[in-house]
Every structure is written in C-alpha cells, then in structure tokens.
C-alpha cells in the first residue's frame, strides 16, 4: 500500500491505482472530461493535470499510477491557468447553444465552463461545421458538440465489443465517426450516449421532451428479458421521456437497445391494459351469415377463469399430452420454474421446452 500525499493530505492507497482515484478517496475533486471510471484511461482532455514533486512537467492524474512517497498538488495558479486555457480552447470550437441543448444542466462541459467562469474567450476562431445526416433511428449525433474525449469509442470497444465508431482524420479535422462516415449501423445500445459528457450524443426519441432538472427519476427493473437490468425512468409529468441506468446497479449502468430505447409502449394508445377475450359475432342478412371475430374487455378474474376452464376441458377431452408448453428467455428464472411446474404438475405432461434451446 503506497503512501501518497495529495494537497498535503496523506493516505495509503492500493498499489496500481491512479492519482485521480487516490484523490477521490481523499474527497479531492480533479476536473476531467475524458475520464470514465469504467473505461481505460485516455488522457486526452488534459484537465486533470497535476503536479508531482520531482517531475518537471504537469502530468494527467487519470493516467499516472501512484508510487510510494509521491507528493501531488492538484491545484495551483499554473494548473488552474492551464485548465482554463484548455476549457477556452474546447469552447472556442463548441456551438454556443446551451439554450437549446438537450444536455443543458446535465453537461460536464457546461458545468466546468461555469466553474471556471468562462464568458470571454481569448481563442476565438474557426469552428467545425458538420451537416447532420445520420439516418439511424435512435442516436442523435451532433458532432459539432463533440469534444473528442473518446469515451464513446472506448465504451463501444471495451464494454460492447462492437467498435462501431472510432477517431478519423487528423488535426483540427479529427472526428469520431463510423467507418467511411456512413450512417451509424450498430446495435444501438446507446451506451455511447450514456457516457457522453456533452450534448454531442443524445437519444432521438427524447428530443425536446424535457431536460434533466425537470424529470423525476423512478428506479425499476427492465421487463424485456430475464437479465433484470435496473432501469431509471426519467419521468416528466406523467410521461416516461428517457431511460437510463445507474452505475452501481447489477448491470453496472449498461443497457441494451430495448431497455434504453424501447419504452414508447408505456404511453402507447395500443397498449393492452386489460385482458381481452376473443368472441365471434355472427350477423345474418338475407342471403348469408357473416362471422366477425372481435375482442371484448374482461376482468382479470374472468379471463383467468376462462383460460382455466378451456385448459381443463381440452385436457379432459384430449389428454394432458395434447399440450406442449414453450417458455421464454424473456421470463425470469422463477417464472420459468413456475411455468414448467405448472405444465408438469398441473397439466400433467412433460412436453415443456424453452426458446433458448433452439
């Protein structure tokens, strides 16, 4: 356990952790844009620069491992001036449109600009102008707001194992894009949105539905499959406008396309809210009889009784082996257990299987 001193406070920390993590243990915050605790260090934004006694130039705390006896300074007039320059440079190439940005109020860059009081910018100059032409259905990519922190690239590669996007071009023209700058064509897990520190990546479906400070967060579990990922619904009024997940959950904050984007059914007009029983209406006119199948609303009791009664009559008439049960990976273990128990013990057949076997 190396002993390090950060801003005069000494602490023993585990071998191999970075100065940034060591500072966190001491509740010393160091500004950063490109660092994400679950991704490998990048060291590109240069905001987390620190001074280490014995090293002539500032180094990034997110990439530097601690060593025994290290003496670290996280804030000094020189460091703060460097950070301010870096922020001014980023903002000099960033649209000044926080007023209409989806992420306003929930944007690390905005937060830092506020904290460093950047109103005037010494380095005004050319800004990257890109035409938005990404035809994918889920992810809004506003590359003018991109600060090239590389988090999206890393999460796509390191967490998803997909590698749908990467850095392209050089110098000021560097940008993050899919191969050959085609439309994004990936799994659309939206992990990139979740890690983006600015408004460069947002969900198309939550455009202008409400900003973060206006939403109520409701924690729940995803019903799409048996994984049981924890979701946090962002509720505006009585409408779910966005879905996210927290980092300290069973799924570590990561979601798939269904969990993240498949929430529109919640307030859909077509959503089933009550059981429906199918009935056949016969209408008779002069020459013939027409049969129309329609659904009528029923109560849960009525519907379940009806199912039980039909199952019983079929079993009585044709025997239990006339049934087969096919269970689903979308159900939980417990639900699958109950289902096979029902098919075996109640219906009385071993004709039970699961979609995951195929």
């Amino acid at each position, binding site marked *: 356990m190396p002993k390090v001193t950060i801003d005069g406070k000494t602490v023993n920390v585990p071998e191999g952790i970075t100065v940034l993590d060591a500072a966190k243990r001491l509740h010393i915050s160091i500004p950063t844009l490109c660092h994400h605790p679950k991704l490998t*260090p990048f060291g590109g934004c240069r905001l987390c*620069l620190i001074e280490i006694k014995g090293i002539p130039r500032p180094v990034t705390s997110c990439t530097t491992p601690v060593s025994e006896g290290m003496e670290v300074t996280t804030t000094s007039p020189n460091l703060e001036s460097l950070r301010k320059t870096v922020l001014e440079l980023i903002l000099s190439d960033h649209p000044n449109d926080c007023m209409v940005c989806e992420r306003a109020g929930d944007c690390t860059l905005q937060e830092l600009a506020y904290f460093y009081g950047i109103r005037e910018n010494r380095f005004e100059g050319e800004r990257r102008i890109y035409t938005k032409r990404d035809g994918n259905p889920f992810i809004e990519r506003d590359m003018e707001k991109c600060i090239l922190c590389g988090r999206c690239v890393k999460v796509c590669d390191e967490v998803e194992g997909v590698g749908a996007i990467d850095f392209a071009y050089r110098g000021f023209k560097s940008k993050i894009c899919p191969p050959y700058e085609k439309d994004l064509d990936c799994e659309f897990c939206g992990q990139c949105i979740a890690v983006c520190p600015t408004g460069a990546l947002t969900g198309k479906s939550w455009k202008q539905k409400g900003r973060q400070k206006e939403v109520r967060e409701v924690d729940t579990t995803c019903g799409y499959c048996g994984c049981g990922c924890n979701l946090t619904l962002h509720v505006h009024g009585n409408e779910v406008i966005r879905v996210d997940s927290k980092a300290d959950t069973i799924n570590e904050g990561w979601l798939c396309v269904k969990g993240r984007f498949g929430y529109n059914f919640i307030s859909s007009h077509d959503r089933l809210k009550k059981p429906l029983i199918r009935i056949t209406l016969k209408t008779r006119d002069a020459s013939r009889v027409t049969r129309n199948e329609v659904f009528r609303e029923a109560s849960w009791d009525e519907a379940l009784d009806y199912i039980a009664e039909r199952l019983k009559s079929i079993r009585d008439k044709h025997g239990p082996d006339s049934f087969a049960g096919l269970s689903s990976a979308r159900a939980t273990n417990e639900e699958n257990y109950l289902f096979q128990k029902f098919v075996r013990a109640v219906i009385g057949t071993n004709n039970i299987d699961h979609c995951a076997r195929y």
Partner: protein
Amino acid sequence: MEQSEENKKKVVVRVCIGTGGLAAGGKEVIEAFKKAITDFCVDIELDFTCHYQKVGCRGFCARDVLVDVVDGDTSVTYQGIKPDIAKRIVEEHLIKGEPVKEWLIDASYYAFHAKQLKILLKDCGTIDPEDIQAYINVGGYSGIKKIVSAMTPEDVINEIKASAIRGRGGAGFPTGVKWEACRKAPGDVRYIVCNADEGDPGAFMDRSIIEGNPHSVVEGLMIAAYAIGASLGYVYIRAEYPAAVDRLKLAIAQAHELGYLGNNLFGSGFHFDVRIKLGAGAFVCGEETALIASIEGERGMPRAKPPFPVHKGLWGKPTVINNVETLSNIPYIIRNGAAWYSAIGTGKSKGTKVFALTGKVKNTGLIEVPMGIRLGEIIYDIGGGIIGNKQFKAVQTGGPSGGCIPAELLDTPVDFESLGRVGSIIGSGGMVVLDETDCMVNIAKFFLEFTQAESCGKCVPCRIGTKRLLEILDRITRGLGKEGDIELLETLCADVKAASLCGLGQTAPNPILSTLKYFRGEYEAHIREKKCPAKVCKDLLTYSIIEEVCTGCGACRRACPAGAIAGDKKKPHRIDPEKCIKCGACFDVCKFASVSRE
C-alpha cells in the same frame, strides 16, 4: 592475340542510386554506360572490362548523379551526370584515358567534404546496398559475431553506455541507459523496434541510411536485441520510402540466407528475426507510443507515459525503440570500441550526426559531422554559403519541433545542450537554411500548418491549440494582426507546450517561440506597420510601376494574369491596385527593375 576476359584490367563505374541519385536519373545513367560500352564493343576491342557498382547516398545530392570511375588505384569522380554524357565518358575517359574535365567534381565538392567526418555515410556511399557481401567485406556483421561469442548482454550494454551515444531520433536519450532499463524490466518477452518513420519536412537521413546501408541497421537491431534479450525486432518504416523498404526487405532476406537471422545464430543459442511494419505516413507515428499503437493495429495515437515503453511497450512487453541512425551507429561502436566513439564529439554529445542540409545554401545534401562543429562551419564551409550570395538570416534545425537560430548565433556548437540553450534542438537532423528573402512569421506558419495537420487529435491543446496558433499567425501574415497578438501567441505557446500529451504538441510551438525570440521585430512590423520586411506575405505587399524607369515594353502587361496592368507602348505602364492579385509576375518579368514591391 585476343586478350582473355580474365586478364583484362577491371574498371569500376560506381553510380549513386540513393533517392537523390535515382531522382536525378541514376538508373538511366547505368544503362547509358552499359549501352555505350556495348556500342563501342561492336567496332573496337576494349582492353578492359567494365563493372558497375550501385551505391547509396553519397551526400552531395545537389550534384547528383555522382559517378566514380575507378581504374586500378585511381578514382575519378564526376558530378551532375546525365545519361547522354555517359557516352562521352566511355569514349574519352575509359577508352582514350582522358577524363572529361567539364564534368569533373570541382573545389566545392572537396570543400563540401573537408569538414565532414563520415562513419555511417562512408559505407553508405561506397558499398552496394543490395549485396550483403559488400557489407561483410567492409567488416559488416563482425560486431554481432564478436558479441555473441565473447560478450554478455551486460557487457554490450556497458560498452554502449561507455560510448555515450545518445538517441538520434530527437530527444537525445542515452541509448545504453534505455537498453539497460529494458533489460532489467521484468518479463521474458522483449522487443526491439527500429523507428524509421522519418517525417520532418526536409529530413532524409534515415531514408538514405536504409537505402545506402540497410545491413548496418539490421546488425544494429541484432546487437540491441542481444543486449536487451529480445528475439524479435520490428522496423516501422513509412510506406512512402519504397526504395528503402525494398532494400531492407532484400537485406533481411539475404541475412536469412546466410544464416545471420533466424534460430541459434552463429551457434550461440541467440535467436533473432526482423519484421517490417509499414507506416501509413502519419508524422505522429514517429512518437514512440503512437508507433507502438500503430504496430498493434490501432490508430496511431500517443499513449500517456509512464508507463514507458522500456517497461510496458509493444503488446505490453518491455520494448526498446531506437532510431535508424542510432542503430546504424551500433555496429561501428562494437567494431571499433566505445573509446573510439566517445573520442569523437564534445561534452555530453558524442559521435557524429547526420544532417539533411537544405534550403538557401549552395551545397545541399546529406552531411555527417562530428558533434560540436559550429553552425557557421556547416553553413559556410560545408554548405558553401548562401545561394546568390544573399544574406544569411537563420537556420531552422530540428524540423517542426525545432527552432530558428539567427546569424549572431552561428558560433553555436552543434550538440544537444548548446542547441537547446539557444531555443532549438538537434532533432532528427533537419537543417533548413533561410536567407533575407524568408519571412520568419511565414516560416513559423509553415511549420504550424504541418504540426496542426499532423496532430492526431487526441489531446485538446494540440488539436485546437495549434489550430488557434496557426490562425493567429495567419491573420498576422494577412495584415489583420492586432495589438496583443504577440502576447496571446506567447501565452498560448506556453500552455500548449505545458499541457500537450506527447512530444508533437509539446514542441509544436517552438518554431513560433524561437522566431519571436530572435525576430520579434518582424512580427511587430507585420502587426503595426502592416509590412512584411522580407517581402513575402502577399497581402502586405503593394506593386507599383516606377514611371521614370519604365520603358513601356509591355512585358509586365503580358505577364499579368489578372489584366491589372495597362499602358501604351513605350509609355510608362500602370498597375490597377483593385485588380492586382499580387502574384509578382510583373516584378519577376521586368528587366528594368521598374516594378516596385513594397
């Protein structure tokens, strides 16, 4: 009686086929010699047999194609040879025995070489780079044979440390110390990498060494591998160097054939092989961590240090990355001993350094000089002074990471420390000579354009900072500079240097800082008086015709692409400033100096 072929005397025609030689027509010259000999054979019987020898860069590229005619003990050197001159040389020199005087090298050729000390370039310009035997004949591969039989890896490291050789790639880190750190790093797999991603504008040392003496690099790699305990080496070489790549591939293949590469070399139990990795032409891949990323198949973006490559490099294993010139020096150090090497040079900078001498100097080419030689000696004695006897203004050393050194500092010795003290670096060895017609703001802008375009985009100060620096320089050269721009440049330069991730960004502001240091007045003239003292920046120039001098010949009118000049024949012409695009065509074409450019 016919003389049998064996009894005839041998004449050797030695032709430079380095990149300079090839570009000047080296291959065609050889063919022309062959054809001339064949043609003469039809009519007369020759009393000699002619042999052709291809050699690598001989340094004096400005005089290519250089041809040696070696007849017994006498060797005659020709310069500026074109294929059509070959026939005359064959007829007058080879057959009649009288060298063709007008194409012989002159005094400047000797002056160019007088102050040089050629170690690497000596073999480079005398042996056939495509023949391993030629290298062996001059002592090649004796270094590796010597160490595998008689020296431990530690001995080799100590020898290299004692020689005090420092990396030739730019940073000047002591090579032996680097090797030792890698050897001591825990792990059983280590790599040696040769950095041949030479990318500085105007630099071609590494290219010429590989083209002219590829086996010295291979042997250097072998010795380094033996010392650090590596059994696989990589040469990361840019694909834009096709001749170098081909010769290196050939060298590796020939070494394999002779059993100089492979398993259990020289029966010592030492295994070593070399792989070539082609770079796609990104300047930043010369930075060692970006180079590693590139070999690994990633985008060439630098990684944070520490960990340093000697601890965690290629594929996460301890790795030594040495520059071509460094590795090429190694066999000579092993052959001749550390004491021999460290006797050359000065203070903390030992040995020789190869420079690519270019720009406004009379003798351009590749030079090898002992460390400690004065800048003035390089420019005036070796370089022969400034073209057109114009006034020397500055010498830019170290490429985009370096700086400009003005006339008053020409006494500065060329070594790592001294150049550092005057605000520049040795770097990889580019040396661009500038004269009074070069605008220093424009020079700074040129290098910033380069570094900005070559920034990998990973870190903010380099990606956006160099862009903003370039924009400020651009507006100064266009007459839109404001009071305070110089101070803004200085602040931003300091911050980009301090905050950038890798050497590219950390050194990118150097061309600005050094020109500001020595030529601040030029910046001020651009900003305050809206004048470019060197008369380079187009937007700050006004062209007009001096009526008293103008003869009305109309040459300027005809040359003007914008139709901005009008006037009757034999009467003074006039330039319409509204239409003038400031191309300078009228200035260049006027025989009477009646066009004024202010």
